[in-house]
C-alpha cells in the first residue's frame, strides 16, 4: 500500500481547473463569444473606420446596406460604428462595476458571517442600502459630483468613474447577503474547527477555508452583476444622467432606438443583441468557472 518511489507529478490547481473548464462546452462557447465581442469593440473601430458621430441627415433611418452595414439612425449616423464604440464603454462599465460590487459585497459578507460582533452592524448597513430609494440618490450624487469629476478627469473619464463607482456602491448588497448566509453555514463545518485546533488565525481561516468554499455563489452573483451593471448604465443614460447624449453606449443606443422601433426595428435589435450576448456569454463563463473550481465536480 505504501509507495515511497512514486512522487506525484505535481498537479497544479490552475492546470486542473483548465482541464475541467475545457470539458464544459457552454463555457468554451461563452468564452469564444465573449472574446469575439471584446475583440470587436476594442479593435473593431480600427478596422471599421467610420466616425460614429458623423451626421449625414440625407441617409437617415436607413436599413442595412453596403454603405451602412447595420443601417443608420434618425440623424444618419452609422449604426455599426456606434455599436462598436458603445460596446467599449458598456463592457468596461459592466466589468469594473461588477468587480467593485463583488469586492465590497464579498468583504462585507465574509466579515458579517464570520465575526458575530460585526454581523449586526454590517447587515443593518446592508439593509439600509437596500432600503435607500436608488433613483433620487443617484440624481443627488450625480448632481453633486458630476462637475467636480469632469473637471478633474475630463468629461468622459470623469463620468465613467462616477457611474462605475455609483453602480458598484449600490449593487453589492445581494452579494453580501448571499455570501454571509453561506459563510454562516461553512464556518460551522468541522474543517474550520480543525483549522482552529491547529492554531490557524482567523484571517487565514477565512482566506484558506471559508472563501474557497463560498466561491460558487460569488461566481453566480458576479456573472449576474455584469448584466445588471450594463443595464443600470443604460437606465442612467436614458434618464440623461449618464454619458453625454452624443456619446454612444449600448444602453443609450437601445433607448434612443426604442422611439423608432416601428420605423427601423434593427436599431433596437443590434444593441439589444450585443447586451444579451455579452450577458449570456459571461453567465456561461461563470458557470464553467464555478464547476472547474469545485474539485468534487472536476474530473467527471
Amino acid at each position: 500500500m505504501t509507495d515511497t518511489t512514486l512522487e506525484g507529478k505535481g498537479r497544479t490547481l490552475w492546470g486542473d481547473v483548465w482541464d475541467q473548464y475545457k470539458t464544459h462546452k457552454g463555457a468554451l462557447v461563452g468564452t469564444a463569444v465573449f472574446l469575439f465581442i471584446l475583440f470587436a469593440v476594442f479593435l473593431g473601430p480600427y478596422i471599421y473606420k467610420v466616425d460614429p458621430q458623423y451626421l449625414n441627415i440625407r441617409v437617415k433611418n436607413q436599413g442595412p446596406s453596403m454603405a451602412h452595414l447595420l443601417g443608420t439612425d434618425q440623424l444618419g449616423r452609422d449604426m455599426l460604428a456606434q455599436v462598436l464604440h458603445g460596446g467599449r464603454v458598456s463592457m468596461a462599465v459592466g466589468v469594473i462595476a461588477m468587480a467593485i460590487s463583488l469586492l465590497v459585497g464579498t468583504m462585507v459578507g465574509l466579515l458579517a458571517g464570520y465575526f458575530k460582533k460585526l454581523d449586526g452592524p454590517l447587515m443593518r448597513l446592508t439593509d439600509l442600502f437596500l432600503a435607500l430609494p436608488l433613483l433620487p440618490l443617484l440624481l443627488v450624487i450625480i448632481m453633486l459630483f458630476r462637475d467636480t469629476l469632469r473637471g478633474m478627469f475630463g468629461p468622459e473619464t470623469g463620468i465613467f468613474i462616477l457611474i462605475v463607482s455609483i453602480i458598484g456602491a449600490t449593487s453589492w448588497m445581494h452579494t453580501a447577503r448571499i455570501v454571509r448566509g453561506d459563510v454562516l453555514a461553512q464556518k460551522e463545518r468541522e474543517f474550520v474547527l480543525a483549522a482552529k485546533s491547529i492554531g490557524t488565525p482567523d484571517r487565514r481561516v477565512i482566506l484558506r477555508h471559508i472563501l474557497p468554499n463560498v466561491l460558487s455563489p460569488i461566481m453566480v452573483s458576479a456573472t449576474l452583476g455584469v448584466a445588471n451593471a450594463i443595464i443600470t448604465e443604460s437606465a442612467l443614460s436614458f434618464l440623461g444622467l449618464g454619458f453625454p447624449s452624443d456619446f454612444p453606449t449600448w444602453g443609450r443606443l437601445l433607448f434612443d432606438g426604442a422611439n423608432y422601433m416601428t420605423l427601423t426595428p434593427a436599431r433596437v435589435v443590434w444593441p439589444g443583441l450585443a447586451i444579451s450576448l455579452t450577458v449570456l456569454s459571461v453567465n456561461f463563463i461563470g458557470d464553467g468557472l464555478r464547476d472547474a473550481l469545485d474539485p468534487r465536480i472536476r474530473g467527471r
Partner: protein
Amino acid sequence: MLPVGGTQIPEGRGILDDNAPLVKVENLKMYFPIYRGILSRRVGEVKAVDGLSFDIMEGETLGLVGESGCGKSTVGRALLHLYDLTNGAIEVNGHDISTLEGEELRELRPEMQMIFQDTQASLNPRMTVGSIIAEPLDEHTKLSKTDKRAKVGELMDAVGLARHFADRYPHEFSGGQRQRIGIARALALNPKFIVCDEPIAALDVSIQAQVVNLLEDLQEQLGLTYLFISHDLSMIRHLATRVAVMYLGKIVELSPRDALYEAPLHPYTEALLSAVPRPDTAQAATRNRIILKGDVPSPSNPPKGCNFCTRCPKVQDICRSLEPVWRDFGDGRFAACHLID
C-alpha cells in the same frame, strides 16, 4: 507493518511514566446560554459539561464513554480550548491553557491535536491531501517547500497512505483513508496529546480495526497520550487504560479498564455494560440485561439530586434530594453515587 519513515521520536517520549499527569482538568464547566424572546434575553443554559475533574497520565489512553448528548465531544473540544470555558482549569504539559488567548494559545497548539469523527466534514473539500496535511506545518514551522513536501511524505507513510495521493482531493478517498489523512494532519507537529473524538464511529467495522490498530501503533512508536471519546464499549475495552463514564455532563465513574469491566461501581456503568452485545449467544441469553426506562433529562434542566435518579433502577430517596459527591474507592477507582459503600 507501518513504516514510520523519518518521523522522529523525541527523546524520552516513548517511556511511559505512570505518575506524571500530562493533562490535568479541574472542575471543568461548559455551559451554553439559551436566548429566547424578542429581546434575546438569557433564559437559561445547557449544562453540557458540569464540573469535571480528571487527570490523564502521560502515555495512557483515557476512554470517555457515554450515550449521545451527554457532553463527550464538548469535553474533547473544551480540553483544546476550542470553546470559551465557563469555568475550570486545564493544564496540558505544565501549561494552564484555560486562561490563555490569542498568540500564547497558538504557540501551545502543537502540543495538542484532535482527530474528528466525521471524516468528510473535517477535511476541506477544496484542498489537496498534501496541503491539508501541510497546514499545521505552514502555521507553525518555517520549513522550505521541499522539506515540507518530504515531511508530508513521511507522515503519509506513517499512517499508511501512498505518497502519490498527496495531489488528490478528500472526496476521492474512502472513509478509512480520509481518517488516515486526519490522523496524519494531527501528527504533523509531533503532538504529545491527541483528543480522538469518536474517530471510528463513522467507519465500517473492518476499517475500524485498521484505524484502531494504526492509533495503537502510533501511540507505541511516538509515545502519544490519547483521550479516546467513543460510545463503543468493546472498542474502549480494547484501547483504553482507564475509562471515564459520563452521564448528563458529569463523570459518574472513573476506573482502570479491567476493574471497570469486571465490577462496575456505578449503576449507570452497570446498565451500560449489560447492553454490550456478546458474540456468544448462549452467554447472551443468560446475561442479566438492565434496561433503563425513560429518556435522558434535558441538560438545561437537570434533575435535583443525582443526575441519574430519574432512570436509576436502584434509586433511593436520598438520590432525589442530595447530589452525590465524587469519592475515591481505592485502587484508582472513583465514582459519584450514594449507594456504594
